[in-house]
């Protein structure tokens, strides 16, 4: 069964999740990955969306962070102040998902601005929940498509903190959470190097070459010594994911 790069990214992210995880889910790839995990190997995974829906089990993917479907299938729905105080800051989330317009080699993210803050070249949407998701969740998974405009050597603005300028910077700030532990892209999976915290390619998706990955990154990319190949999506994973997307299209008239 052939698959797209985006399907591979979603499947690779889904496989990292377990029944014991409590995930703070963002819209798009994270939402697809979390629900794919729930519909395959992790039926008891707990999904939380920042709109306040606790332990939600949508049958179709939401188009927004606050779709009615999320509320209808939730255990309950709390206010947004409660979500950020008791649930996120409360330290109850094991995995937070983030993405961004730009990422650097230490998995810091920019979703605020390109160019100077006061005279922006491109004004991006801003951080939203990201600054505190990055610091308060047990660990962070980042999903982003590769490309030299996204994987950049230096960020004009740090919206959410990854590993700062390298190993030990989180601890210096008093952070006790692990920060970004995986970056799942359309081409490969990266992890912070245990010694330096610099993002390192640990597995290439099937059919992807080192050169392709290097071409999609704005810094000189490191590869793990024991570089693996990401196992291709199974037929079952693809079936479930495609059915999920088909249900979503049918419900919304558009893809999520």
């Amino acid at each position, binding site marked *: 069964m052939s698959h797209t790069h985006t399907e591979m990214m979603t499947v690779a992210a889904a496989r990292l999740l377990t029944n014991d995880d409590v995930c703070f889910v963002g*819209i*798009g790839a994270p939402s697809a990955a979390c629900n794919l995990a729930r519909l395959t190997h992790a039926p008891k995974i707990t999904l939380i969306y*920042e*709109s*306040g*829906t606790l332990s939600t089990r949508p049958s179709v993917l939401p*188009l*927004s*962070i*606050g*779709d*009615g479907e*999320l*509320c209808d299938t939730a255990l309950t*729905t709390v*206010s*947004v*102040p409660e*979500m*950020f*105080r008791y649930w*996120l*800051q409360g330290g109850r989330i094991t995995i937070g998902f983030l993405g961004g317009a730009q990422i650097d080699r230490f998995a810091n993210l920019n979703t*605020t601005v390109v160019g100077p*803050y*006061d005279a*922006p*070249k*491109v*004004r*991006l*949407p*801003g*951080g*939203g*929940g*990201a*600054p*505190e998701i*990055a*610091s*308060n969740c047990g660990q962070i998974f980042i999903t982003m498509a590769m490309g030299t405009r996204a994987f950049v050597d230096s960020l004009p*603005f*740090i*919206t*959410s*903190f990854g590993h*700062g300028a390298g190993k030990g*910077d*989180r601890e210096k*700030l*008093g*952070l006790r959470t692990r920060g970004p532990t995986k970056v799942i892209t359309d081409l490969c999976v990266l992890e912070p190097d245990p010694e330096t915290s610099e993002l390192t390619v640990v597995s290439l998706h099937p059919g992807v070459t080192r050169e392709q990955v290097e071409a999609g990154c704005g810094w000189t990319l490191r590869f793990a010594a024991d570089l693996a190949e990401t196992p291709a999506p199974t037929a079952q994973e693809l079936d479930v994911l495609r059915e999920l997307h088909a249900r979503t299209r049918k419900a*919304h*008239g*558009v893809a*999520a």
Partner: protein
Amino acid sequence: MAEFLSLAEGIEAVLSDGASVAMEGFTHLIPHAAGHEAIRQGRKRLTLIRMTPDLVYDQMIGMGCAERLIFSWGGNPGVGSLHRLRDAVENGWPNRLELEEHSHAAMANAYEAGAANLPFAVFRGYKGVDLPKVNPKIRSVTCPYTGEVLATVPALRPDAAIIHALKADREGNVLLEGIVGVQKEAVLAATRSLVTVEEIVDDFGERNANAVILPSWTVTAIAHVPGGAYPSYAHGYYKRGNDFYIAWDKIARERDTFAAWIKANVLEQGPEAFARYAAPARQAA
């Protein structure tokens, strides 16, 4: 006690030029009809406050209602940029827009502190990030017990809060349900408030003992505007107009298509134009 007014009277009663206003809604229950009325009444120099400014603030900014935006995420959810917001920030069109930018956690805490009549809120945030470098309102306090330094944000105390809710009863109590966002906090934090509602009922009837209700004496004015959240949604009444969110990207991208859309859909319309969005799902429900 809340007064029952028309939408036009309600906007006149709670929103004046130069005021700060929180028109809140977290995907659900965004007060679009009220925003259109503010545009029709030509409000100017507003400080717009919202965690997630989206289409209705894009419209108000594009029409020159705002001089300042206090926010934490300004985009078209799942679609992309807000082009009118970007045009104001990047090019000063139709006027300069000053930004006061926070994180969601900060904004949620700031509304909560406002509702609690505190001057500021404390939270654990902004570790290692750049926003405090560009927003002097982000400060800190030291815990008097542990010595930990925590982030602070000034309480939000808007001159006006404007929200959309499902139901009001005849006494003017307001029922919220589903994704309730920060709307209750916004109303309690504000000096004046206007609530547009889908329905006015004799009484709320059987309900959960802990239902989310704003008592009549915490609300300034209520206006009956069925469909008034569209293209946002009202749980149990009508669904989100996802197509319109996508369509907005094209409408708002250019100044002239934007102006034409506003003329036809806001300036030449009234609140009753929203009723058509309320109707179909109601029949289906």
